[in-house]
């Protein structure tokens, strides 16, 4: 067994017995991903702060308040399903864009799942 100290909490094993290959999500059992935008105080724009999983919009905005604003009532929060965001497209002459996709991230929720797959 070999080890690495990568990651903030220190040493963990690596090596052949610990597979690293990510497998593409094929069936989504968990809640969809939402992106969270917070306006920390009046006079500034909403800023993207991260994401979370929630079953629906209402639960998402409450979880966002818990998690990203520590329940500060004074701030304004937007949540949006990650899948509903369209990003600028890769052919805008920026060579840094990966040549695929028009979504903000490589989020797994972008895998298309047919409606009739159970436990989605």
């Amino acid at each position, binding site marked *: *067994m*070999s*080890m*690495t*100290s*990568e*990651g*903030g*909490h*220190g*040493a*963990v*094993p*690596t090596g052949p017995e*610990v*597979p*690293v*290959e*990510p*497998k593409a*999500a094929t069936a*989504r*059992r*968990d*809640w969809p*991903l939402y992106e969270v935008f917070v306006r920390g105080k009046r006079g500034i724009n909403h800023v993207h702060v*991260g*994401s*979370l*999983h929630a*079953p*629906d919009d209402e*639960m998402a905005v409450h979880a966002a308040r818990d*998690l990203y604003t520590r329940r500060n009532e004074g701030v304004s929060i937007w949540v949006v399903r990650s899948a509903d965001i369209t*990003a600028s497209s*890769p*052919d805008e002459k920026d*060579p*840094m*864009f*990966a*040549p695929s*996709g028009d979504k*903000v*991230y*490589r*989020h*797994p929720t972008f895998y298309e799942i047919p409606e009739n797959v159970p*436990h*989605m």
Partner: protein
Amino acid sequence: MSAPTLERPAPDEAALQEQFDATVSAEHRIEPRDWMPEGYRKTLVRQIAQHAHSEIIGMQPEGDWLLAAPSLRRKAILLAKVQDEAGHGLYLYSAAETLGADRADLTDKLIEGRQKYSSIFNYPTLTYADVGVIGWFVDGAAICNQVPLCRSSYGPYARAMIRICKEESFHQRQGYELLMTMVRGTDEQRAMVQDAVDRWWWPSLMMFGPPDDDSPNSAQSMAWGIKRHSNDELRQRYVDMSVPQAEVLGVTLPDPELTYDEASGHYRFGAIDWSEFKRVISGDGPMNAVRIARRRAARDDNAWVREAATAYARKHAS
């Protein structure tokens, strides 16, 4: 109505790689939609996921004392801390998801033993002094590891780390403050503190990973800017920080070879027993099975809750 898709020239992989390398060496951040080498992405997913798993599994050793915390103030502090760890896990899973990982899938991998978490959490918390020592040692070591990661070349990870580091410093301080209070208490309490220090000191040194000459992946990770200092450098920094803190506290670190070296300005310490460490991380630690079983139960026993919320959302989608 969408426009017809026109054929575009194939991307020039060499140019993309060059651009990536230039960005990293200029200390700029790589962002989620940027082109990145596949190895970089995989290594990051693994690194961030095991960091996230460590936060979540790390809730358990201290969580075991939540119901029995010996004062209401300590209970509130510990509850806030354990809750912070859930939040940190969430920030990190969120960063991993920008790379195409999926939280449920990462959790499955953790439960099935295909991804790991920091071995330090496979030791049991035997007395309340362990809560203090975890704050002082484990969170202290985590801070040494994590502060440099605030400069990680991967933007979402670096941003998550900045947020986490801010909160983590309070975690360390609450631990140290608990120990300060305990050593001023009864003889029994002082003995508890020393016993906890004896049990956690060496495992905390092991948190920094194997010695540099036995750390095969480090060079690539350094080049990619996702590891900023070598294991031995960080361990030394941690020891140098901890020794004076132990003196103030009036406890003895369990290492007879620990001495100050005037010439280098560093503390020299004894050899680490890596065989025990390997035993613990390979699954023979005192608490491995317990930690994973609880995580599995939280996932499986409550699956019906997640399904119910999904079903409700489908019924009420406008």
